[in-house]
């Protein structure tokens, strides 16, 4: 808008040949009728994902209303204490795990591809799998409330309250297993988004020209990769304790309840920013469109997002100020808490400055109102956030309604309001616009409702009201504030109902190809079609391509930019380099299928059966899930070259239609997966060292327990090494995939890995080390359990690779399978070796 683009010769000549568009449409066509459930396109999965997240928002909101009804007056007993505890636990758990994180991920899946000029994310079936596992698992999890088996220990589930002795029911297992596997959905989505943002951007969209929203989602997804493994590990350890009596958190046998808190908050504090950063990034997209002006300080915002991501991992002790950690340590965390408030405050000033630089007076449309409301509520929540970073203040405010007020201001202000702004802002980009009038009514109800509900809680907190109480006494000055909160909650509910009516009445997914750029925004999502994204992939020369070149929309829709056709006659994505977005190859992306749906249902059934201790149904469901995964891989990946080997995408750029090795999106995804596994393993190593520190050298190992047998450990080390060597040889000697060397090497590798694993475990058993006697044994075997899971997957992948070779589905050009297997295989061997060094070496060498 500021600088007009110089005229440019289009990459592809116009007009486009007859039939080109028809083929593109045909390739990306959604299956009709009920078969649409097999569709994986982000254009359909994204909005469905958003709808599911909003459904969980309403469901969890209803629980909030029950809480406010009970607390409207002192001494009410509308629900009994036990039910109340389930209700508040589910309110928090569903809001955090089934609404907030999925919602921001869902919006990203819906919008991000078109925003970065991609036809599709690189792994649409993985995205669809993430959606189905979340929807099925989430609904079943929520239903536990109707059977009185919902979690009841608070959303952070501190042991030993949640240990078997004090929570014998399956409520806690519902949480550990039910939520545990929904984390898989979040991680799967995050990996897809990372690879999508780094490798699927339109030509010319360098990191510097990438929209802020993509930055926000990139930081979000990386944070998910590093934060979520901690809660998965924590849940696994607690479930091992509950199911098999491994005393990780029981002090009488060397465990420590503080271990849970460290692990949980190492996830839980970044979680807050995981939710906030994408929402802030939405605001950074909407504000410029509302103001008709570029975001002031774009690079500062990028720095703020990345900086917040880093700092947020240094803040977990904020939730543990009252646990008796020495004040000197606390002062570091207080300083870190102050530091992290600066990038958030910076963004507030960026939005104010961008509003200030508007060309015309801002029009108070629903998105603009929600953004202004967000600024009001979030700023207040941010300021109370600085307050609770101040250690002595927090000693008073901690676990009172002041904290309830603070966290709702931050999360409703920092996430829900931007989300509703996004709903009203982007609805026309994916479907029919929502009602301006209803949007305004909803805004005022929600804005007044939020402040009326949560502002008085600051006061009730300082009048001495702790959180998580099912009633409160009269005569302490709490009555008025609680009644106001309850009236506010009803107001908020009315606002949410208005939005629901608006969406149900007015929103329909778009069918037609073209759309109106309702807000005259500058970014690419406003010229995408619902199915195949852009008609042609635009050459990007600015952060706001549509402002930079007002003719771009016409050029793209006429097919004048890159890849205006389906080069191989299949769904495909343009893969580009991570920093400069130089096109590298044309990748096949998955189309409609059923295996991922079955895999999702099987996985959900497996975990939920386990939660209910139904072992045989769980095993059956698990087998179905594994079979579905294998089918999905077997039929849906690693085709090798299909169709023309190279394609001219326009502008003289000729790209291969197939790639192998580190260039591929698939290799990148495997690396991300290894980061997830590695982080989880680091958490387990940390747990081992933490428990060692707590117990002291004299109790490590405790009397009657020994160090793992060194001979067997050395054997395991050698066998793991041999397994790694075999896999390397197999990949090396693959050739055209018809020889026997690589097959024999694979077979030998399978044997060596399995033997290495057996020696690894036997060394522990010979120690003797027993998992139930002491936290020493529990943490050693905990590491081994994690390693065992990896060995099992590596063996499955190795056998699968061998089967591919034997059926002629492996070759010089068709080697994605063996490349990825090798990566995971080497990772597993490396992880096992690190474990051996720790378990055998550290206790012998360190003291």
């Amino acid at each position, binding site marked *: 808008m500021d600088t007009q683009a110089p005229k440019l010769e289009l990459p592809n000549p116009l007009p486009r040949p007859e039939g080109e568009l028809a083929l593109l449409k045909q390739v990306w066509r959604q299956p009709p009728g009920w078969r649409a459930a097999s569709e994986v396109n982000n254009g359909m999965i994204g909005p469905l994902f958003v709808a599911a997240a909003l459904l969980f928002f309403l469901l969890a909101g209803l629980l909030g209303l029950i809480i406010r009804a009970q607390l409207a007056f002192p*001494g009410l*007993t509308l629900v009994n204490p*036990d039910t109340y*505890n389930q209700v508040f636990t589910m309110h928090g758990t569903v809001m955090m795990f089934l609404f907030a994180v999925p919602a921001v991920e869902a919006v990203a899946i819906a919008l991000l591809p078109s925003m970065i000029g991609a036809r599709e994310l690189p792994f649409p079936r993985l995205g669809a799998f993430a959606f189905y596992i979340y929807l099925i698992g989430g609904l079943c999890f929520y239903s536990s409330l109707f059977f009185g088996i919902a979690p009841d*220990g608070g959303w952070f589930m*501190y042991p*030993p*309250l949640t240990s078997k002795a*004090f929570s014998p029911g399956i409520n806690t297992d519902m949480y550990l297993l039910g939520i545990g596997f929904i984390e898989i959905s979040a991680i799967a989505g995050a990996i897809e988004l990372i690879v999508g943002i780094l490798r699927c951007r339109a030509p010319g969209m360098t990191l510097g020209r990438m929209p802020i929203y993509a930055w926000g989602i990139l930081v979000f997804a990386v944070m998910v990769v590093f934060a979520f493994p901690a809660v998965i590990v924590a849940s696994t350890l607690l479930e091992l304790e509950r199911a098999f009596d491994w005393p990780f958190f029981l*002090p009488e046998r060397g465990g420590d*309840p503080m271990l849970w808190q460290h692990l949980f908050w190492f996830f839980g504090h970044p979680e807050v920013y995981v939710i906030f950063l994408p929402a802030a990034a939405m605001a950074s997209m909407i504000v410029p469109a509302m103001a008709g002006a570029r975001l*002031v300080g774009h690079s*500062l915002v990028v720095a703020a997002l990345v900086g917040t991501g880093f700092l947020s991992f240094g803040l977990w002790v904020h939730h543990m100020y*009252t646990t*008796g950690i020495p*004040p000197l340590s606390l*002062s570091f965390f207080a*300083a870190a808490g*102050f530091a992290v408030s*600066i990038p958030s*405050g*910076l963004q507030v*000033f*960026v939005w*104010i*400055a*961008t*509003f*200030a*630089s*508007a*060309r*015309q*007076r801002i029009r108070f449309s629903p998105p603009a109102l929600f953004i202004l409301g967000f600024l*009001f509520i979030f*700023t207040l929540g941010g*300021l*109370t956030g600085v*307050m609770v970073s*101040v*250690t*002595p*203040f*927090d*000693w*008073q405010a901690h*676990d*009172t309604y002041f904290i309830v007020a603070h966290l709702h201001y931050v999360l409703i202000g920092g996430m829900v309001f931007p989300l509703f702004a996004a709903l009203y802002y982007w609805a026309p980009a994916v479907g029919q616009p929502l009602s301006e009038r209803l949007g305004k009514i909803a805004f005022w109800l929600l804005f007044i409702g939020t402040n009326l509900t949560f502002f008085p809680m600051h006061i009730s907190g*300082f009048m*001495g009201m*702790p959180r*998580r*109480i*099912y*009633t409160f*006494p*009269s*005569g*302490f*000055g709490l009555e008025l504030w609680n009644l106001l909160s309850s009236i506010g909650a009803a107001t908020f509910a009315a606002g949410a109902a208005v939005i629901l009516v608006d969406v149900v009445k007015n929103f329909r997914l778009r069918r037609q190809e073209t759309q109106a750029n309702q807000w005259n925004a500058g970014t690419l999502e406003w010229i995408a079609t619902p199915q195949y994204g852009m008609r042609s992939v635009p050459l990007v020369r600015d952060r706001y391509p549509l402002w930079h070149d007002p003719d771009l929309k016409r050029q793209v829709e006429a097919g004048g930019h890159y890849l205006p056709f389906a080069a191989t006659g299949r769904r495909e994505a343009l893969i580009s380099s991570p920093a400069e977005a130089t096109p590298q190859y044309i990748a096949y992306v998955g189309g409609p299928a059923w295996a991922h749906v079955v895999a999702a249902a099987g996985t959900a059934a497996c975990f939920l059966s386990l939660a209910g201790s139904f072992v045989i149904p769980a095993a059956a469901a698990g087998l179905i899930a594994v079979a579905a995964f294998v089918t999905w891989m077997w039929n849906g990946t690693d085709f090798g070259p299909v169709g023309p080997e190279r394609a001219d995408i326009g502008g003289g750029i000729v790209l291969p239609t197939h790639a192998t090795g580190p260039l591929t999106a698939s290799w990148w995804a495997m690396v991300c997966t290894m980061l997830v596994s590695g982080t989880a393993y680091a958490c387990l190593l940390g747990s081992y060292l933490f428990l060692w520190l707590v117990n002291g050298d004299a109790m490590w190992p405790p009397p009657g327990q020994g160090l793992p047998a060194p001979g067997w450990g050395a054997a395991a080390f050698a066998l793991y090494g041999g397994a790694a060597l075999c896999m390397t040889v197999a990949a090396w000697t693959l050739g055209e995939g018809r020889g026997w060397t690589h097959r024999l090497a694979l077979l030998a590798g399978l044997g060596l890995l399995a033997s290495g694993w057996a020696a690894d475990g036997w060394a522990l058993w010979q120690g003797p080390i027993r998992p139930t006697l002491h936290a020493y044994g529990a943490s050693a075997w905990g590491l081994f359990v994690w390693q065992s899971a990896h060995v099992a997957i590596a063996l499955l992948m190795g056998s699968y690779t061998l089967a591919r070779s034997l059926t002629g589905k492996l070759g010089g050009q068709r080697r994605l399978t063996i490349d990825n297997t090798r990566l995971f295989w080497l990772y597993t061997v490396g992880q096992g070796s690190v474990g051996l060094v720790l378990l055998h070496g550290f206790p012998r060498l360190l003291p």
Partner: protein
Amino acid sequence: MTETPGRHRVLAGLLLAGVLGACSGVQTPLDPMGDHAARIAVLTWVLFIGGTAIFVLVMGLLVFAVFAPARIRQAFGTRGFVVGGGIIFPTVTLIALLIYSLGVSRAVVLPMSDNPLRIEVIARQYWWEVRYPDEGEGAVTANELRLPVGREVELLLSSADVIHSLWIPNLHGKMDMIPGRVNRQRMRADRPGVMRGQCTEFCGVQHTLMAFWAVAQEPAEFDAWLARQREPIAPPATPEQARGMQVFGEAGCGACHTVRGTEWQSRLGPDLSRVGSRLSLAAGALDNHRGTLAGWVAGAQDIKPGNNMPAFGRSLPGDDLLAVAAWMESLR
């Protein structure tokens, strides 16, 4: 009793709502009774006032950015404004706050004296055992923390089951009570008075009804109280009390409770040796008199469902309940 849970629940609710009433200001950080809480209260007001000022300033800028005439407001639409308001201003403010708040942190954890009065508080689902370990055998009470005015006390905080957290906001901030650990916290009451404290870490189904009273007394008064705690109980003074004591034994109450000077010496439940003199029953859930004593023994599971005290309403006839209540009321 199980047939008519509704009626009892209403009763329990009424008891809660009515009986707990006291003056306001007995459980708030903003009415400090001691030095630590006073310092934190000053810090709190600094934060509240400073935070309000910054909030008003930022909202003022926002209103200005949206409503001011284009020519004036556009001068603020610059990177310089963002750097000044979003980086320099918060950095300076927060460094100042950090220095000030670290000073307060230090002041409220530094020992004030060499020989504080040590008090052990052991949290259990859902009550508090309070022991004075340096004051001899039997210096034990429950759900009530008495301390002398003007002398520093050191609380030794532990838990016998799950994580709890002790909070007497008028004296100091919270400190968690974690199984397997002993956390220490020092505080000092500077004037006599009655304050309420409460568990602030969710500890199970009756977390809500886990409160207590903290009573700061003049040293002489405190010493007399402590001496009284150590004495064995006097024999029953009336036939009704004697009957109550007999019922107490027959009903098996001694399996969980201690009454000093008797054979009943269990620590599973609160020590009842001086139960009649306490300000509350059932960890702050009820006021303490003969009626509530009888009500609690009869309907502990209706007043506080899920706690470990069985209800005796069905097994004990009304006369016996009243007798037990009369006897316990006399244990002062």
